[in-house]
C-alpha cells in the first residue's frame, strides 16, 4: 500500500505549523507499519493531548485521542483486553514525562507490549511555548523569561531503569533511521520506547534563537552521534542515537494468560 492509504485524507490539512517535525515522525511511522505488513484493523493508536497527540486523527487505524498524560493507561486497557492488537502510542515530551511520567514508568515496569513514541521537541507547543521536563537548563520559554533552572530527564535512561525492554533514540534529520527503529520497536515483544528528537521552530527555535526549521534539523544532525561512537568519547556533549536496550523479558499479557491458566487449575 502507498503511504496515503494509511491516512484519513478527509481530515487534512493537518494543524501542525510549517517546519514542525511531527509530520516526519508520522511519515516514518507509516513507512515502518507498511514494511511490517500490519493490517489497519489490527492497529490501535492511542494518544494524549498536545500537538503530537493530534497525529491519531490523521491515520486510518482504530484511534483513541485521550486526556493529557494518560495515553499509556488507556492503551494498557486496550492491550490487556485484546492482546492480539498492535498498540502504538505517540506522545509529546510533556505529555509522556511530566503529567504522564507515572504511567510511563509503570507501563515500562509491566513490560506490556506497547510501542511508545516520544516526540521530544523540548517544549509545550500547543499552549504556546512553555518549558517541559525535557527542555533542560538555560532554555528560554514563555514560562522561563529568565531561562530554565530545571534539569531534564534522560528518556533513554529513565525507560531503561523503569524496565522497558526496547529503547531507542532517533531524530527527524535521520528519517531513514527513525523509520527503521520504529519498525524494530513495533516488532519487539514488550514495552518499547522510541525517543524522537524533533523540532518546534515556532516556539523552541524562535525563543532560543536557533533559527528556522532547516537550521533546527541541522542542529539535530550536528549535535547527535551513533551510540558508542568515537565522536561521543571526544565530545561528551553529543547526544547518542541508536538502539540502547533490546532484551527479551516476560511480557505482561502473556504472563496474564499464564495467570489465567493457574487460576483455572486451582493453584495459586
Amino acid at each position, binding site marked *: 500500500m502507498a503511504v496515503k492509504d494509511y491516512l*484519513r485524507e*478527509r*481530515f487534512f490539512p493537518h494543524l501542525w505549523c510549517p517546519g514542525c517535525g511531527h509530520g516526519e515522525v508520522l511519515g516514518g511511522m507509516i513507512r515502518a507499519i507498511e514494511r511490517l505488513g500490519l493490517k*489497519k*484493523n*489490527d492497529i*490501535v493508536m*492511542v494518544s494524549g493531548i498536545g500537538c503530537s497527540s493530534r497525529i*491519531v*486523527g490523521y491515520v*486510518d*487505524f*482504530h*484511534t*483513541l*485521542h*485521550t*486526556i493529557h498524560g*494518560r495515553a499509556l*493507561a*488507556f*492503551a*494498557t*486497557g*486496550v*492491550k*490487556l*483486553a*485484546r492482546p*492480539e*492488537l498492535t498498540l502504538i502510542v505517540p506522545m509529546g515530551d510533556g505529555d509522556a514525562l511530566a503529567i504522564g511520567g*507515572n*504511567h510511563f514508568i*509503570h507501563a515500562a515496569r509491566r513490560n506490556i507490549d506497547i510501542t511508545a513514541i516520544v516526540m521530544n521537541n523540548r517544549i509545550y507547543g500547543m499552549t504556546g511555548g512553555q518549558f517541559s521536563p525535557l527542555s533542560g537548563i538555560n532554555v528560554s520559554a514563555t514560562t522561563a523569561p529568565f531561562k530554565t533552572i530545571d534539569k531534564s530527564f534522560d528518556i533513554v535512561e529513565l525507560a531503561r531503569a523503569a524496565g522497558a525492554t526496547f529503547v531507542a533514540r532517533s531524530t527527524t534529520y535521520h528519517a531513514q533511521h527513525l523509520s527503521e527503529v520504529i519498525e524494530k520497536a513495533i516488532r519487539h515483544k514488550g514495552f518499547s520506547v522510541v525517543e524522537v528528537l524533533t523540532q518546534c521552530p515556532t516556539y523552541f527555535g524562535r525563543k532560543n534563537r536557533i533559527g528556522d526549521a532547516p537550521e533546527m534539523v541541522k542542529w539535530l544532525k550536528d549535535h547527535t552521534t551513533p551510540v558508542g561512537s568515537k565522536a561521543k568519547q571526544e565530545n561528551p556533549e553529543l547526544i547518542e542515537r541508536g538502539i540502547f536496550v533490546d532484551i527479551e523479558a516476560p511480557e505482561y499479557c502473556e504472563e*496474564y494468560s499464564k*495467570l*489465567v491458566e*493457574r*487460576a*483455572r487449575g486451582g493453584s495459586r
Partner: protein
Amino acid sequence: MGKTVKFVQGNEACVEGALYAGLNFYAGYPITPSTEIAELLSLKLPPRGGKFIQMEDEIASLCAIIGASLTGCKVMTATSGPGFSLMQEALGYAVMAEIPCVIVDVQRGGPSTGIPTHVSQGDLNQARWGTHGDHAIITLTASNHQDVFAMTVEAFNLSETYRTPVILLFDEVVAHMREKLILPEPGELHTVERLKTSVKEGVDYHPYLPREDGRLPMSDFGGVHRYNVTGLVHDMWGFPSTEPRVVHGLLRHLVDKIENRAHELARFKEFHLEDADIVLISYGSSARSALHIVEERRRRGERLGLLELQTLWPFPGDVVRTRCARARAVVVVEMNMGQMVPWVKLAVERPDRVFLANRIDGVFITPADIHNILRIIQGRGV
C-alpha cells in the same frame, strides 16, 4: 434446585452483581472502604478468563477500563472519595466520548483523606458535578445487599443503553455490613448487552451519528470499522470540530439523552406513602434507619412514610413532588450537611416544609437521631 444464599458484605454483593451483568474487565487501585471489590475480582475474574489489573493510581484505573470498553468489554472500577476525585477528568472523557463503564464510589467521610473507615454520604454532589463542564450523569445507590446486587446490574444495563458512565454511590456501612444475599438465577434479572452496529465492512460507519431512537451502536476496536474517539468536541465521525452547530448539537445530545429520561431512569422504593403526612426521603444506608423509624411509628398509629431513592442522578424530581404532595413535612435523612435538601426543595410545592435529619460525625445515623428531629418538627422537643 434451591437458590444460592450467601452471607456477604455489600462490596461482595456488588461484585456478584457485576459478574452477573457480564463484567469481564476490572482495573483498580486499593482504597478503603472499597478495596474488597478489587480483592474479590482479582480472585473471581481470572478463572472466567476475565481481566483484572491493579493500576498505578485511580486515574490510570478509569483510563484503562475506558480503553477496554472500546474493545467490547463490560468494565468497572471501584474507589472511594480521594480516588473518585482523581477520576473526575477521565469520567468527563467517558461522558464526552460516550463510553459505557461503571464506577463504584464507596463513600467515606471527607473532604481530603477525611475519615477513611467511617461512613458518610458526602459525595452526592461530587457525583453530579465532579467533572467540569455541562453534562448529565446517572448515579445509583442501594441500602441493602439484594438491592446492591440489583442496582449494580442496573448500572451496567444503563451504561450500555445510554453509552455513558454510570456511578454506583455506595457508603461504608452498606459496603462493610454483612447480611443475606440471594443470588438470582441466570436470566432472572434482565441484562443489556452491547448494541453493535449492523453497518457492514466497507460501508461508512459514523460512530457518533445517533439512530432514530437516539442510541449509538458501537463497533469494537479491532473490528472492521476504524474511527476516531476523542474528548474534544467532535462530529459524527469522531473528528474534532469547533463548528458552533456541532458544539451545540453534541452538548445537547449528551445532556438530553439522560435528563430528558429522568422519569424512566428513576429507581425508588415506597414505604407507607399512601397516607403519610410526614414523608422521609433517604438513600443508601441512611434509609435503613429511616425505614426502622417509619415502621416503629406506624405501629403507634402515626402516619409516617419513606421514599427511598435509588436513582440519585438525574434527580427524580417528579417522583419526589408527587410523593410529597400531601405531606405536612418532608424530612431528608442523609449523612452529609444536607446535600440533597436543595434538590428536594426545588421539587416540592412547599419548600419551607422540607427539613434535614443528618449526621456528619462519621457515626451511622440511628433511628434515635431521626426521632429527635421529628419531635422538633412536631413541636414536641427532644
